[in-house]
């Protein structure tokens, strides 16, 4: 090319000019401001409105936060301290209520000498979750995850160890029955296994537990359900509900995708019914109606009743999430499983569910976040949730009468941190589990 121009171009520059700095309006902070905040009339107006909002919020609330009192015995004392320190007529935050009552917000009315038990359960929760969430941990630890729920029940409620052992034993017996029956009755073994477990719990567990209790009494100081409250109650209901609702939700999702008309119809009816009514009506069912549906004279724990209904509620939502995951799998995966000659349960366990559940993780986590937020509704059936139950209780004390903002902010911040953390974690998990490199 250059030869062709050698005759036509009279002059060719052979040295580059030194680079000029960009104009002041196109560099550094000014450029960033122009591009991001003042790129046009509309954006300028928006920016100014945003700045005005922030200025208004900070101007209104900064002083209140700045005049915080941490050491006081009552709201009146707080106000005195604020008046003495910053002058009459100013308002300030009285965080002393949190300092005074934090244990009730966290543990409700749980005996203070036993606080180590819920704390231990909370720490062990992460030990149990680790092998489920991270494949780097040894597979052996899954065994601990499996017995963790029972261990947690024992640590939280105390009492004899043997009833909890009976729960595990029932599951083990059911599993053994499944393994024994599977080769003989393909497709039906699951009914047999459930039957064996139920029969054991109905007739075998009680006497056996009594006998063992007499023989080897292992027990912790009992803590009754009415002692539960605050975040202990919210987390117990939330985690318990999700752990029990996951298997149920998966079964419902499979039922809804099933070719069998009756199974499908029952699953659809259940899911649509539960999703169609507000949680609060289900909580009323737990507190008022469940006694009608059980044999006369049955009395059982309100937390357990609420947890059963919360589980059914969450299961319907999880079923819909998992159904989305199942539907998102390409048809070829089902056909490949069939062509390998896998039966229904093997195909589900080895091929379909691992992929479908992976797709469903964000949905499952957001269901869990929703459920954790909804646990505050248990206040309407007389339990002490951290938000209203405990706050009302604190306000019933004359010393803290009329304190609103500090408890709400405290509880709100804890809920925010837990839920925000979970949603960020699920985003991370989603990215990590992505197998396609797009």
């Amino acid at each position: 090319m250059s030869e062709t121009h050698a005759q036509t171009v009279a002059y060719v520059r052979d040295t580059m000019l030194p680079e000029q700095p960009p104009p002041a309006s196109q560099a550094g902070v000014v450029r960033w401001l122009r591009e991001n905040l003042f790129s046009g009339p509309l954006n300028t107006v928006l920016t100014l409105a945003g700045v005005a909002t922030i200025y208004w919020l900070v101007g209104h609330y900064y002083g209140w936060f700045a005049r915080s009192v941490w050491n006081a015995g009552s709201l009146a004392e707080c106000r005195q301290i604020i008046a003495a320190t910053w002058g009459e007529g100013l308002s300030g935050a009285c965080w002393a209520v949190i300092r005074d009552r934090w244990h009730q917000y966290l543990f409700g009315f749980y005996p203070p000498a036993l606080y180590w038990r819920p704390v231990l359960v909370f720490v062990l929760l992460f030990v149990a979750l680790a092998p489920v969430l991270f494949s780097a941990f040894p597979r052996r630890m899954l065994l601990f995850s499996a017995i963790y729920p029972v261990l947690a029940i024992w640590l939280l409620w105390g009492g004899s160890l043997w009833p909890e052992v009976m729960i595990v034993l029932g599951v083990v017996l059911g599993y053994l029955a499944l393994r024994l029956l599977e080769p003989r009755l393909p497709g039906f073994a699951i009914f047999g296994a459930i039957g064996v477990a139920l029969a054991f719990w109905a007739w075998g567990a009680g006497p056996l537990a009594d006998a063992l209790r007499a023989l080897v009494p292992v027990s912790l100081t009992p803590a009754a359900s009415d002692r539960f409250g605050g975040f202990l109650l919210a987390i117990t209901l939330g985690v318990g509900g999700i752990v029990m609702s996951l298997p149920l939700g998966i079964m419902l999702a499979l039922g809804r995708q099933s070719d069998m008309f009756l199974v499908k119809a029952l699953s659809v009816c259940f899911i649509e019914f539960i999703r169609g009514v507000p949680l609060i009506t289900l909580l009323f069912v737990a507190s008022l109606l469940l006694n009608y549906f059980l044999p006369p004279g049955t009395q059982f724990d309100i937390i357990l009743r609420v947890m059963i209904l919360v589980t059914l509620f969450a299961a319907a939502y999880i079923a819909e999430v998992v159904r989305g995951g199942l539907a998102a799998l390409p048809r070829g995966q089902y056909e490949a499983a069939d062509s390998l000659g896998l039966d229904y349960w093997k195909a589900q366990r080895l091929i379909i569910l691992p992929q479908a559940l992976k797709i469903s993780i964000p949905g499952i986590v957001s269901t869990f976040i929703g459920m954790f937020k909804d646990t505050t509704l248990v206040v309407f059936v007389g339990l002490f949730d951290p938000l209203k139950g405990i706050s009302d209780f604190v306000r019933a004390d004359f010393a803290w009468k009329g304190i609103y903002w500090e408890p709400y902010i405290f509880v709100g911040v804890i809920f925010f941190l837990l839920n925000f953390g979970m949603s960020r974690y699920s985003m991370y998990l989603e990215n990590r589990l992505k197998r396609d490199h797009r």
Partner: protein
Amino acid sequence: MTIASEPPKAGFRLSQLIYDTRYRSLTIQVIVFMLFMAGAAWLVDNTVRNLQVLGKDFNFGFLSNRAGYDIGQMLIPYTNDSTHGRALLVGLTNTLWISFLGCVAATVIGVFVGVLRLSRNWLIARLMTVYVEIFRNVPLLLWILVILAIFTETMPAPNAYKVAPDTGVAGQEMLFGMIAPTNRYTAIPAVEFANSLGAIATPLAPLSLNFLLIVAVLIGSVLVNRRLLARARRIQEATGVRPVTWWQSLLVLVVPTAAVLVALGFHLSVPELRGFNFAGGTNVSNSFVVLWLALSLYTGAFIAEIVRAGIMAISRGQTEAAFALGLRPRRTMSLVILPQALRVIVPPLISQFLNLTKNSSLAIAVGYMDLRGTLGGITLNQTGRELEAILLMMLIYLAISLTISGVMNVYNARVKLKER
């Protein structure tokens, strides 16, 4: 030589019920059906026996008994002499009313915030993210309680709006000169007609003729406008030139309605302080305002995320392709982007509407008399009929939900991509 590939003609054996996949599903269904019926029978039997033990029966006769309690807010006429059934209807209309207003406000908030979150303005995008994350990650009950506390603790008493006679300055200015939030109620302007046509009495509620007339005229205007646009399209298809219609549309849509409003003597009656309370306007109780604000702000945050996801789901190439075809930005939006984005947005949006409707049962926290407050609250406590009241309440909520999701399914079927 032929190799016989005839299937074995053995008769039906009982073991085929278990091992043959053709019959197995039938067997499983029979077992499931028996288990289900057994479970249902067990529950019904328990209920019957429990009712016997308590000496109760199962009937809905209480709905026609005198209710005997007052309800603060109502859309249909009700006194404490009305029946429990009437109280149920009041509660149901209250639930539907707050859900409707909540859905409208939440959609407006959600669309604004969702669009602003995608804005190139750094500050606004951040602010909107903060709003969405804060509202999504904290329980709705907290927002209801906080807004309730804001109204009861920080709003002025009605007489704070009093104008001092000597200076002529009000202690507290009304918003836009017509809205006065107080610690007990919010006074808003009322719609009034100077030459009112009256109302027809129906069993449910008196039906305002003014309102009917305005709606009829509006529907008429819209129909005429559609004829107008159809004619413009015909001319465009025939000649290639689209006649200018915007001023005709504006005329057809605005003038008749405005004329009717003027003829009826439509005006806003601004509330003013008389004695210790506002009169002249409408005093909306704070329980309603608080619940409405909380539901709208909370659901608005979820809708914002849905709107954002919907807009982001439409790839940039669609816009570029539309521009390449020579479409103007506005037509690109209305013909290319919106139809595709709406297909993504509408199903989750409707499910948020459903959530809002169900969450309106949190009225219990502020004392707004919705369906749960009347049927599931005072009626239940007065008559002691937990079983009937709660089952009926669940069925009504279920009917509302199924109606809304039925509408959604019809919409989905209409906008579904026609694929191979």
